[in-house]
């Protein structure tokens, strides 16, 4: 272990640089492969025993062109957008008021509530999915957008509350008290002072929820199994894995990943903080 700014002997430096290089290769190699496959022509995939080229013989954007004009892909994409947006809406509607109370007030039973929220998060999705599907079948929510949105909200709510608590907690109490002193009521204080100041954190929570719903597979799969027309992107991708050529699979994968990567970079700060303190996984 070196200190943070220690000088290194040349030999050690070379070992360390090699390590970083290998690490970058491990992380970026698969990403490169994904992009490479998505722009490959068929002759670069079905090579007839020849080694697959590291860069396609005839790179092409045909798969993307196809996807952008394909009505089925469009519908699946829109399904994903609809489910994710409604999940964000519902999660924020339920989560932000709760986060406001938990972040601003030392109410009795606060610790117990936080513990309950964490335990909901720790419960395995694959175990809770059966009861929820059975319950939704009874309510007639099986194979509907509503069912999927409700389920995704259940998954996202703990994160929204935790990130929201952080956002509200970080606002100095003096600001709120100043508003009271100046005659603002509780509602006015919330909407004029606290909410605007918490927006960056809440935006992060919203993005995080969007990504969670966008990526989600288990609940989507169990709840939509058998009704193709409401399939989201993740399900669609899984469904065609045996049938389609690999370059199309890769192109769909890229379309599925790009929003996630872009949004993730936007909320990277919050994600890093959340993971480091253990509140986000």
């Amino acid at each position, binding site marked *: 272990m070196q*200190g943070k700014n*220690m*000088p290194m*002997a040349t030999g050690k430096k070379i070992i360390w640089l090699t390590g970083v290089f290998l690490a970058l290769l491990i992380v970026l190699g698969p990403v490169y492969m994904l992009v490479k496959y998505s722009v490959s022509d068929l002759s670069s995939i079905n090579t007839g025993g020849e080694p697959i080229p590291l860069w396609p013989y005839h790179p092409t954007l045909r798969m993307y062109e196809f996807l952008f004009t394909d009505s089925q892909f469009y519908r699946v994409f829109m399904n994903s957008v609809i489910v994710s947006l409604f999940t964000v809406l519902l999660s924020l509607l339920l989560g932000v008021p709760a986060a406001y109370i938990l972040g601003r007030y030392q109410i009795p039973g606060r610790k117990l509530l936080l513990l309950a929220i964490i335990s909901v998060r720790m419960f395995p999705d694959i175990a809770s999915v059966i009861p929820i599907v059975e319950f939704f079948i009874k309510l007639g929510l099986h194979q509907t957008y509503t069912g999927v949105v409700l389920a995704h909200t259940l998954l996202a709510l703990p994160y929204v509350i935790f990130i929201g608590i952080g956002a509200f907690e970080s606002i100095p109490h003096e600001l709120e008290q100043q508003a009271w002193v100046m005659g603002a009521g509780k509602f006015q204080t919330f909407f004029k002072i606290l909410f605007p100041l918490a927006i960056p954190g809440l935006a992060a929570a919203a993005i995080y929820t969007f990504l969670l719903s966008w990526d989600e597979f288990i609940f989507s799969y169990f709840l939509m199994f058998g009704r193709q027309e409401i399939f989201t992107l993740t399900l669609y991708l899984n469904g065609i894995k045996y049938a389609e050529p690999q370059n199309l699979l890769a192109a769909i994968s890229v379309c599925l990943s790009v929003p996630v990567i872009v949004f993730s970079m936007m909320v990277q700060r919050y994600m890093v903080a959340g993971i480091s303190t253990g509140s986000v996984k």
Partner: protein
Amino acid sequence: MADVVINSFSKKFGSNIVIDRLNLQINNGEFITLLGPSGCGKTTLLRMIAGLESIDGGELFIGGKYYNNLPAQKRHLAMVFQSYALFPHMSVRNNILFGLKIKNVNKAKMQYKLTWVLNLLYLKGLEDRLPREISGGQRQRVALARALVLDPDVLLLDEPLSNLDAALRETAIEELKRIHHQVGKTIIYVTHNQVEALTMSERIALINKGKVEQYDRPKAMYDDPKTLFVAEFIGSPPMNFLEGEIQIQEGFGGVNTSIGFLKLDKDRAAKLEAMSGRKVIAGIRPQNIYFSEHVIRRRHTDTSLDLIVEFVENMGDRSLVIGRTRNSIVMRFMVTRDENITSDQKMPVFIDGRCIHLFDTMSRLNIFNNDGSI
């Protein structure tokens, strides 16, 4: 033998030059202090000696051995850090024995060393405590014990007293002096606190902007500051500084300043005659300005002055008086605390001409003390 020779040390962080062709020689067994304001490069210098920072330029010899390329692990030095850097998960005993265990010292010798150092630093009975279970002063002594037990050629101390409160610091200073006397190691001590430096060390290297301003015995640093920076830094309360010009008046060499013509002692006055018209800054310690009423016999090299008292700061055994001259120049001086002085009172004082320090306005060097400057 563990004399330390530093030849033309250089260190850069990016484009920022932290140590600038610095030279320093430390004799075997000597206790020296690297003193300077924060950011002057003193800690960097210490870390370069320890091998924790690379040496960008220059040479380091310890005991005549070329040390530049030796990694920290192989240098026969020990260091005490500002934060003490005690391993929080190890008992006092394991902290102290950490280095010996790495060197595979045999059990009997380890036990002997442990007993010796525990006795030396009054740590007996604390062996099984964890660092968080002992007091700040004890932690500081454990850090010192951990260094001494390695029997290093040179002991490096990086502001080891800065985390102690004032009362503890006094005893710690005495402790350090005692230990240096007992073990006789070469000690390099880093601090920004001039009191620590002046009371403990045999020599002080005052560092400013990566260079040694003056390397001297504490008394010499105080009595004969070689540069304006040394004069500003050493001594408390700070000196009075007045801009002026060297002139000859009534056959005496002196400095014409905003508060009038200041006379110097005979020897130096004679030297001034050759420098007439030179722009200088005169520095006068508050301790060298006296309240006239108490002095019966006055020298002809004293300069009289009338001050109006602005206010008085009680400093315990003495008081610092802040006064203004007729033309509103602020002067600070010391009186005994028995003096009954009130604001707006008029006070006749005089300045001891033997204790006026003169620095060249341009070069900022003492015009008498620097070889070749006159």
